[in-house]
């Protein structure tokens, strides 16, 4: 006699695990994640183990790449090593991108949540405010803010955050308006939950998937913003960054292509990696794609 088989109890998969299962099936998204890890690892460890200062003049100017073994990517117009610049410049670029995305999300999610949850005049007022910010060309407004309040990594991150939140606010508002009508919100209200609890503990976790995707894409946009500002010479002059390298070498670009090409490639690959991760998360969270 065999033992009667007891069916395994059904355990629902946690949303995070389910999303990861979907994500890991997506080859492009995995490539993006891998690329992102490689870039982070290279800049993080590189800036630790590569002793030189990115501002130091170490060789003759405009040494082409692959000629001298010590300077595989060549030197710039002053004779600074491009590899050192790339390694030391990656950290600040990504840190500003991440900080700016965080500020964007904090402002955008707070205002969007208030507008979407309360509706009425609060919604009208906040949306008018949002529309006003959407009228200002973002880069120009960020340029003004950075110059008025002297450039440092924090001012730059803050300026980028201040100009980029409207889209996040609109997205959050739409999600909140949709979710607040659902039954579980009514149920939470029925057991006496306060508004703040409903906003933070009930609606926000359920609105999280599109907001996480938007956060990933915001990091990409913020990195491009930082690069643009540094390229224009409006970044922190004491901190090397990829945009700054391109901007500083721009006037000599017809004499030497490499000092402007490699940092730009690094910005491109970083933003590409972040946006592939964002697209992958978007697909992973999308229930319509789940059964494929």
């Amino acid at each position, binding site marked *: 006699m065999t033992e009667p088989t007891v069916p395994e109890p059904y355990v629902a998969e946690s949303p995070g695990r389910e999303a990861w299962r979907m994500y890991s099936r997506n080859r492009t998204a995995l490539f993006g994640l891998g690329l992102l890890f490689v870039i982070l690892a290279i800049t993080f460890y590189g800036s630790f183990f590569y002793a030189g200062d990115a501002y130091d003049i170490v060789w003759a100017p405009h040494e082409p790449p692959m000629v001298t073994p010590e300077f595989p990517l060549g030197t710039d117009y002053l004779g600074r090593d491009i590899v050192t610049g790339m390694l030391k410049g990656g950290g600040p670029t990504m840190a500003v991108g991440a900080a700016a995305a965080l500020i964007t999300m904090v402002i955008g999610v707070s205002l969007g949540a208030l507008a979407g949850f309360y509706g009425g005049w609060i919604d009208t007022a906040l949306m008018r405010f949002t*529309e*006003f910010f*959407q*009228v*200002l*060309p*973002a*880069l*120009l*407004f960020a*340029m*003004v*803010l950075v*110059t*008025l*309040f*002297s450039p440092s990594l924090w001012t730059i991150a803050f300026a980028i955050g201040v100009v980029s939140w409207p889209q996040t606010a609109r997205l959050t508002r739409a999600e909140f308006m949709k979710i607040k009508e659902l039954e579980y919100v009514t149920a939470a209200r029925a057991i006496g939950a306060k508004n703040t609890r409903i906003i933070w503990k009930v609606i926000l976790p359920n609105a999280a998937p599109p907001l996480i995707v938007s956060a990933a894409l915001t990091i*990409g946009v913020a990195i*491009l913003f930082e*690069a*643009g500002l540094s*390229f*224009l*010479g*409006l970044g922190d002059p004491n901190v090397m960054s990829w*945009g700054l390298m*391109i901007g500083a070498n*721009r006037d000599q*670009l*017809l004499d030497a*292509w490499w000092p*402007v*090409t490699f940092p*730009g490639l690094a*910005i*491109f*690959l970083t*933003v*590409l990696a972040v*946006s*592939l991760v964002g*697209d992958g998360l978007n697909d992973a969270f999308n229930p319509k794609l789940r059964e494929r």
Partner: protein
Amino acid sequence: MTASFFIRRIAYGLLLMLGVVILNFLLIRLAPGDPAVVIAGEMGGIDAQMLAAIRADYGLDKPLPTQLWIYLSNVVQGNLGESFFFNQPVATLISARIGPTILLVLTAQVLSIVIGMFLGVIAARKPNGPLSGFVSVFATIGYAVPVFWTGIMLVILFASVFPIFPVEGMRSVRLRDAGPIAQFFDVAHHLVLPAFTLAIIYLAQYARLSRASMMDVLGSDYIRTARAKGATEQSVLFKHALRNAALPILTVAGLQFGNLISGALLVETVFNWPGMGRLAFDSILRRNYPTVLGVLFFAAAMVVAANILTDLSYRWADPRLRGRE
């Protein structure tokens, strides 16, 4: 009905512009340091007499609301301040630079919409075909490339490898006294690289968007009806389907206009295009705030105008909206 919509839309636009003026005023006040020094801007050694003149002009010794009122009435009269470096009123400086920026931005907008929609429509016919793959790869790449870097790469390519397009400025010096037709072609020739640099990002986005939108539309009943009544494939695609698929692109194109101006700022700097972006950049380096804030004002006005035009064209393109307020 449309007229009253139009009037209300313009009134709201003016309200937004009033907001921009107030913001500019606040920015000058919020900046660290003496506002008179901020307004004087680039001048290193400002003499006391000049500062006193600025204080009197802007009423800086009066209470804040009065100052705001003085600032507002100045702007309404077209007085955006003086640029001491160029020794010209800001309004005059900007009016000389706004034309090239509009030319660049509109050309890029038209190029990206037309080419993007064309690619999207063709790709939508074979959702898994090679062109569809190309469109989505291109859109992903276009999103990730810094626009100034694309410009720089094109400058290197066309200055040293294929010298067929000029990489700097808007006119050739040797054609300064040429006839209008020669001048037109000269400007168009200079426009090619900056406009394409700016268009590439949006072109890719519109291609992806119109591909998705066309695929939606092509599955609908009226397309089957059109096919059933024997319409040619061309007429189905470009007449029946595209008209409906174009609406989302119109919306996005309107929303993107502000980003397009931001991009133009960088592109103008790369190609030395004599527009507002270049002026803003030069003025920021000289800490000339009245000019910078003037550029911000005019750029915002362009976005407001573009939004109004988008709303109107939306109503023109979608008759269902016309009756509504």
